[in-house]
Structure formats: structure tokens, C-alpha cells
């Protein structure tokens, strides 16, 4: 237990006062001459046990009452944060999770999780007699001495950010700091909402953390103040992708909500080049999340631009807006690898990637042996209608997809036994005479054959095929033939997507050319693949790309919120960094609701002394003075003493006088 006035504990000697008085009283007896000593001796012999016990209890009550009073004066500290063992700490290293998820609050006017925990830590530090406080915040990762707990809530390093946290890195920094400075008794306090993506329980650095804490010169424990144990209603918006397609800007958005399954209609606000609410649209969400694509006509904007999309304010104001920026119209390059570039199907596929009238779209045809010609770095889409690549080309293809490029594979005429992404072509299957292979079911809300923006389905049901090649391997089936075999499968690898189509837009295979399904699929894949080329305009809050470099000067372009220069590197928004226009968004992982559970925590801190304190809705301080409890104890002891001292009803005098003296 800790005391704010430990010197008062010397007063505990006063607890001996009742015993001393008792002993003195026993010595300071009065002498009387007595006749009935016979009864006195008999009574003294019989007065043992209960009476003596009662007398001892009275003495104990008096002693404890004084002791409790002294404890109250010494101002003991207790609390669910420090418990009974936190005192006389010389240094507290505070690891503060400033990630965007810490901005969740219970309602309007309520402090966010970050604000609440910072305030409570400030109070706790004050109550502990203001030991040295060092803060390591998750946004900057810098170690900063806090001169006084009073200023803690005002520090820049405790303000809201849109970054994510890397808790293992921060704890490692705290350990390194303690190792270097070698202070006295220290503790590492971690204030976080235990978001799994921030704690990274699979990170191998946790082993080093365990051994690092053990190796510290003084025994150091870890105290984790966990907030966010309760799910608070909240909508969050994420920007999955943004790219400029000619005069339109395509935004892939995801709206998530923390709870609720019923259908809800929420408004979306768009802003382009500072003009707010260019299109207020209500979207309806029925599950936990909604993915949607928004096409924003750029109109007269020929060069670069920026904007944001926003939800209405809710319980986390930091996840209600996403920002985008785009550049000038740029050429879109696609490559077609055809097993026979001269045949008709190659022409169809080439035209689907670079339709007539789209001057900036180009698609060059190469044969499988000419793949060295492919400029993988500028390509948006690779169409592969040939036996699957092997060797170096397969590696280049895998790297291309992983980096965000799109690839779509059509079946070759020649047999192909190789596999890529774990998928390979099977045998060619011909339909019986006068019969077709037709589509069974397909995914209408996702993938290259998803419905159009107006909800109009693609003519997948009109597809008729007389020849197909089976698709083998483990991949997500987006469309299948009526016999349940896959027609269209997708494999997502890293940031990119690979699609396999089971038939060709060729009269000898199917009527796909007539339905133009290959055209839609190829164009949508180009959109996806172009996104990576526009990545230069996007950055994650707190990342290196979002920081100024060399002589760059930061200024904020959007007007979504007031610009605070000190927090600029850690806040979402559209910034002009020197000559770069960067739309900074919070990392999408901050929208994940999964928390690290106690079992995982136990596992990653297996041999480390740590205490986990779940913050609840109670407004108790992290640490509080217990003097009131001790005063109550004083009263209780005094009450008990009084009850014990109560004389029982006087015993009946055996015989009374006939009459009193007159």
C-alpha cells in the first residue's frame, strides 16, 4: 500500500496508547479495605474466558480505531489501476495508444477513450505524489518527459490522431529507455483499447519484450489499462481504392458498423475541390458492412484534384471521413499475352481492353515467348490467353498482382498443365450436340461481373457455351456453370486480383463476344489495376509517405476540419507536401473491432509480471485515496468498542433492605 503522507505512519505508535493506558490503570489502582474478600476471590477465580476475551476485544477495537485513524491521516492510495501494490514508484513510462480507434466515445459530450484514460492517468500520477512520468505515444513514438501530470491532457503527444499503433514497438522503446536510464522502481503503463491490429499478438518481438523486462535492473511490472471493452454504436468509412478513369473518379468505399443488423439508411457527403456536398447520397446498409463504388464526374477538372467523403458525426468522429486526391489523366496500359496473336479471339480481347474511342487506353498483344516486352511497372492489366506462365514470367506475374496489378486468365486452346496462384486449367469439355453450357449462379454484388451502378445485372444468364475448360484449384468462385463447375474464379493476392474465366469470347467456344461479358470484366479489372498507379496520391496517417521530406512544407488543402500544424503528420486530410498532393487516411485496420483477448495477452506476456485493468463505465479514478474508508473503519471500531463496553443490565441485588434509612 502507498501513502501520500508516509511520515504520518510514525503515528502508528499511538495505537499502543489504549494498551498503555490499560496497563497504567492496572498499576494505578485504588486501595480499599474490604470485608467480603471471600466473594471477591471466588468471583476473580470464575471471571475468566468470556469476560477477559471481551476486555481484550475492547482493547483491540480501541487500538485498531487509532491505527485506522493514523492510516487515514497518512492518505493511503488504492484503486483498480494501482491496486494495493503500486506505490513508491519513481518512474512511470506511459505507452499511450493514440490510434484512431481510441477516439471512440460513449456519446455526445463524453470524452473519447483516449481523453478519458489520459485524464485518469493524470489524476493517478498526482495522487501518487507525482513520480517522474515519461510518455511514449503511438503516433510519434518519441520519448518525452512530462513535467507535470497537470499538463498531460494538453500535450500534443496525447492528442487525437488517425494513425495506428504498434504496441510491441512502443513497449520495446520503453524497455530500452529504462535500460538506458536505470531509474529506481519503475512501471510501464500501457493505455490502449487492445485492438488486435495494434497489439499484433503474432509478432515475434513479444518474446524479446518478455526477456527485456526480465533483464531490467529493477523489477518492473507492466500495467495495462484496457478501454473499449464495450461495443459502442458507430459507423466508420474506409476508402478501399480511388482512381481516375478518364473524366470520372472511381472511389471504392466501405461502410462498417460496430453493431446492428437491421437495415439503416445513412447519408454520405461528398466534397470535391473544397465544394462541400456536391452529392449528398443516402446509402442503405443492412449487414455489418457495405461496400460501394462511387463514380464522381470530374467535369472540367483536367489536372489534379482532391476531396473527401464523409458520414454524419457519430461516436467516433475520426472515422467518418476519407480523403482522396487524383492526378491528371494518364495513359492506361494493358497487355495481352495470346497463344496465337493472329486469331480472332486475340482481337476481341485486345479491343475489350482498349475500346475504340478511348485514346488513352492501349493494349499490346504479345505471344508467350515475347513476354519480356511487357512493362510490368506501368501496366494496369495483363490478359493471359495462353498456357499458364512458368519460371521467371510466373514470378513476375505473381509480383505484379501482389503489388496491386490486375490479371485475367482466359483458357488456351493448347493444353496447360502448369499452375499459378494455385490454380490451373483442366481439360477442355465440349457440350453435347444441340446443348449449351449455361450459367448457374453468379455473384452480383462483387467481382468483375457484379451489377452496374444502377443495379442492372450483366447478361450472364445469356451466356451460351459449347466449349469450356475446367478450372482447378482453390479460389473463390464468382460464377459457375449450371453443373456447379466454376465459370469465373478470383484469387486475391496482396493488393491485386487475378481472375480465371472458363471460356473464350470466340464463336468456337461461346457467345461471350455477343454478351460483352469479357469487355466488362476486362474494364473493371483495368480499374482495379490502375488504382496502384494512383497510389502516389494516397498515404496512411503516420506513415513515412505522409511526412514532409527534405525541404517540403506542409499545408492542408481540404476544409473538412481545422488544420492543426502540430498534428498534421498524424491526421487524415489532403495535404500539400512541397509539390506533392497526398490524401492521408487512417489505416483501414483501425476499423477492425477485434480485440486481443486475455488468453492471447497471457500468451504474449507469459513470463512478464503484468496487470490488466479493464476500464468500465464506472467513474472511479484509476487510483484514489482510501482515507474515507479508513475513517469509516475508525467509526466502526469505535462503534464496536462502544457496544462491547455497554454494561449489561445490572445483576439483581440478592436481597434488598426492608426500607432505606430515613
Amino acid at each position, binding site marked *: 500500500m502507498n501513502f501520500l503522507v508516509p511520515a504520518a505512519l510514525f503515528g502508528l505508535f499511538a495505537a499502543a496508547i489504549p494498551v498503555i493506558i490499560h496497563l497504567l490503570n492496572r498499576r*494505578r489502582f485504588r486501595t*480499599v479495605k474490604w470485608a467480603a474478600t471471600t466473594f471477591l476471590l471466588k468471583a476473580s477465580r470464575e471471571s475468566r474466558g468470556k469476560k477477559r476475551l471481551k476486555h481484550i476485544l475492547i482493547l483491540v477495537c480501541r487500538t485498531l480505531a487509532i491505527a485506522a485513524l493514523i492510516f487515514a491521516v497518512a492518505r493511503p492510495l488504492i484503486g483498480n489501476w494501482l491496486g494495493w501494490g503500486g506505490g513508491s514508484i519513481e518512474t512511470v513510462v506511459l505507452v499511450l495508444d493514440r490510434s484512431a480507434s481510441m477516439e471512440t466515445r460513449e456519446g455526445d459530450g463524453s470524452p473519447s477513450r483516449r481523453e478519458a484514460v489520459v485524464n485518469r492517468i493524470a489524476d493517478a500520477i498526482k495522487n501518487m505524489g507525482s513520480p517522474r512520468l515519461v510518455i511514449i505515444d503511438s503516433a510519434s513514438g518519441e520519448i518525452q518527459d512530462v513535467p507535470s501530470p497537470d499538463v498531460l491532457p494538453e500535450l500534443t503527444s496525447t492528442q487525437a490522431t488517425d494513425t495506428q499503433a504498434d504496441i510491441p514497438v512502443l513497449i520495446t522503446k520503453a524497455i530500452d529507455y529504462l535500460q538506458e536510464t536505470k531509474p529506481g522502481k519503475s512501471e510501464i503503463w500501457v493505455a490502449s483499447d487492445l485492438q488486435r491490429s495494434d497489439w499484433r499478438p503474432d509478432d515475434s518481438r513479444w518474446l524479446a519484450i518478455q526477456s527485456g523486462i526480465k533483464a531490467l535492473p529493477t523489477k518492473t511490472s507492466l500495467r495495462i489499462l484496457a478501454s473499449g471493452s464495450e461495443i459502442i454504436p458507430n459507423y466508420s468509412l474506409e476508402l478501399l481504392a480511388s482512381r481516375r478513369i478518364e473524366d470520372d473518379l472511381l472511389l471504392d468505399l466501405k461502410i462498417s458498423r460496430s453493431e446492428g443488423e437491421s437495415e439503416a439508411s445513412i447519408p454520405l457527403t461528398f466534397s470535391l475541390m473544397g465544394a462541400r456536398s456536391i452529392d449528398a447520397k443516402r446509402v442503405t446498409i443492412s449487414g455489418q458492412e457495405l461496400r460501394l463504388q462511387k463514380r464522381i464526374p470530374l467535369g472540367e477538372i483536367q489536372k489534379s484534384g482532391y476531396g473527401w467523403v464523409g458520414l454524419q458525426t457519430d461516436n467516433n468522429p475520426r472515422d467518418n471521413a476519407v480523403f482522396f486526391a487524383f492526378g491528371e489523366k494518364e495513359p492506361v496500359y494493358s497487355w495481352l499475352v495470346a497463344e496465337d496473336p493472329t486469331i480472332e479471339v486475340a482481337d476481341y480481347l485486345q479491343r475489350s481492353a482498349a475500346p475504340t474511342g478511348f485514346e488513352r487506353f492501349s493494349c499490346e498483344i504479345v505471344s508467350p515467348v515475347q513476354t519480356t516486352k511487357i512493362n510490368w511497372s506501368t501496366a494496369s492489366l495483363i490478359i493471359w490467353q495462353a498456357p499458364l506462365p512458368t519460371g521467371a514470367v510466373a514470378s513476375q506475374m505473381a509480383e505484379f498482382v501482389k503489388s496491386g496489378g490486375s490479371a485475367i486468365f482466359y483458357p488456351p486452346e493448347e493444353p496447360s498443365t502448369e499452375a499459378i496462384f494455385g490454380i490451373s486449367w483442366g481439360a477442355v469439355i465440349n457440350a453435347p450436340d444441340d446443348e449449351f453450357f449455361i450459367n448457374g449462379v453468379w455473384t452480383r454484388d462483387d467481382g468483375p461481373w457484379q451489377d452496374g451502378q444502377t443495379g442492372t445485372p450483366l447478361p450472364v444468364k445469356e451466356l451460351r457455351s459449347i466449349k469450356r475448360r475446367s478450372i482447378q484449384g482453390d479460389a473463390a468462385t464468382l460464377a459457375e456453370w449450371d453443373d456447379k463447375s466454376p465459370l469465373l474464379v478470383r484469387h486475391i493476392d496482396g493488393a491485386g486480383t487475378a481472375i480465371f474465366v472458363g471460356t473464350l469470347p470466340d464463336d468456337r467456344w461461346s457467345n461471350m463476344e455477343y454478351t460483352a461479358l469479357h469487355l466488362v470484366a476486362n474494364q473493371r479489372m483495368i480499374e482495379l489495376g490502375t488504382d496502384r498507379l494512383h497510389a502516389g496520391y494516397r498515404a496512411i496517417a503516420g506513415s513515412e509517405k505522409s511526412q514532409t521530406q527534405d525541404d517540403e512544407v506542409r499545408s492542408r488543402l481540404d476544409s473538412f476540419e481545422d488544420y492543426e500544424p502540430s498534428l498534421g503528420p498524424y491526421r487524415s486530410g489532403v495535404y500539400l507536401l512541397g509539390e506533392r498532393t497526398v490524401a492521408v487516411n487512417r489505416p483501414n485496420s483501425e476499423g477492425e473491432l477485434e480485440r486481443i483477448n486475455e488468453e492471447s495477452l497471457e500468451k504474449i506476456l507469459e513470463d512478464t509480471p503484468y496487470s490488466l485493468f479493464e476500464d468500465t463505465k464506472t467513474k472511479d479514478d484509476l487510483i484514489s485515496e482510501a482515507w474515507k474508508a479508513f475513517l469509516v473503519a475508525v467509526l466502526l471500531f469505535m462503534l464496536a468498542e462502544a457496544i462491547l463496553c455497554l454494561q449489561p443490565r445490572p445483576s439483581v441485588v440478592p436481597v*434488598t433492605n426492608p426500607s432505606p434509612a430515613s
Partner: protein
Amino acid sequence: MKYDFLDTDVLARLGAIPLESRFPMVGNVAGRHRSPHRGSSVEFAEYRKYVPGDDTRRLDWKAYARSDRYYIKEFEADTNLRAYFVIDTSGSMDFTSGENPSKIDFAKKIAATLAYLIVNQGDSAGLSCCNEKLHLEIPPSRRAAQLQHIFETLKDIEPTGETGLVHALHQIAEKTQQRALVIILSDLFVETEKLADALQHLRFRKHDIAMFHLLDPQEVDFHFERPHRFVDLEDGAVVVAEPNLIVDEYHEALREFLETVETKCHNVHADYHFLQTNANYEKVVSDFITSRLTKKR
């Protein structure tokens, strides 16, 4: 009056009430008390057949006329009362809580008042004082000078030493041949069984026993605020005790003692009176005398 223990007003008020013996007394002169012998009082006792040698003057001629038989008419014999006051003068009788007279002073008042009444009604009174042993004995006498003798003796009594009451009672029982009224004034801090034997001895000698059991109110209440060192008045033994802790046990021991004493006294038909020294002694004496009027056997 020069004696503290006498109050003339009290004596005047009580003088009209005769003190009776509950049992027949054997005196050497005629008096107002019944005798076991037949006498010449006016109180008819019984008829009995004439036997040769009887005084023919006591023949009831009227009865002879009616029944043609000789009957002797007998009357009760009246004699005087011999009262022995036995006062315990051990050290314990000197105890007083301050506000009330000591037990010995209270005993003196009762003894002196009763002695005065007894002698004044023509009976004999004697006095015995005892501590370790029976050390003073004034034989009963009905002379007027007897009172002076008794009062002077009472005046000079100084309680001291241990109690020898039991031994003294045995001695009195042995020495006193004729029936008498033995009035004992003591706190009875003796072994109750031995006391019972002594009383039995007295009763066996056909004495009428009156017991005044005296205690100070503080000895009964046992009310003390703080630890005390109790020094025994008789043997000087010291007991250190916290009265608050033992008061219940003390009361229980006292209650048991008083019940035992009272039972033992009743067993020998003793006239038992428990008194605290804050009592009105006039009423004590008055009640004692009047109660005996109805207790004649």
C-alpha cells in the same frame, strides 16, 4: 444521651411493644413469658386426673360435682426472658462504604435498643462479643444497672481480628443451661456449614435464635469504577481486581451465600433478618418485635 447508638425517641416509641419469645422460656422469676412448667398464672392450661400427693387446693370441685371424679386444674406458668446478644466484633464488621454506619455501629444500635426494651419489660439481657474467640461475656441480668454495663461495653467495642463466631456460638450453647433468646449480630463471613452446626447446637439447647445478618450496601452492590486493591479487614490479605470484570460473578457468589445462610437459619427455626446498614434501624427493631408476636410456638 451519651451513647451514639441510643435514640431516646426511638426507645420511647418502641417501649410500648413487648418483646416476646417464640418458645417457652425457663426463668428464675415470674414474668410475661411462657414457661414449659405449669404455674399459677391466670392462663388455663389443662385438666388432669388427681393423683395422691397433689395439692388439694387445686382440685376443681365443680368438675367433681359434675363427673364425680377428681380433676386437677392446671394453669400456665409465666417466667422471665433471658436474652443473649452475640455481637461479631471481627475486623470485617468495621467495614463501611462511608455514607452509612459501619456494620458494628449498626449492630450496636440494634443490640442497645433491644437490650433496653428487654430489661425495661423486666427480662434479663446479657452480651457476648467475639472475634477470634469469645472474649467478653456479660451474663444476663434484669437489674437496671445491667443496661449501663451493656451500654458501656458496646461503647468500647473496637472490631479487630478474624471471625470466631462459630466457636463462640458453640461455647454459648454449652455454657447457657437455661433456655434463652440468642440474638446474633454479624456479617456471617464464616463457613456456612460450620455456622449451621453452631446454630443447630444452640437449637438443640432449645434456645430461641434471632439472626441479624448485616452487610454494607457496597458489599451488596459491588459498584466500583476502576481497578482496586482490596485489603482484607481481618487477615490483611490483598486482592487486586477489576470490579467491572467480576461484578456478575461477585453477585452470583453473594446470592448463593445469602440463600445458603437463610436456608440454614430456617432449618433451625432461627428468626433470620438480612439487613443492609443503610436501613432504618427503628423499623428493623420494630419489625423484629412485632413479627415475634405472631410467631409464638
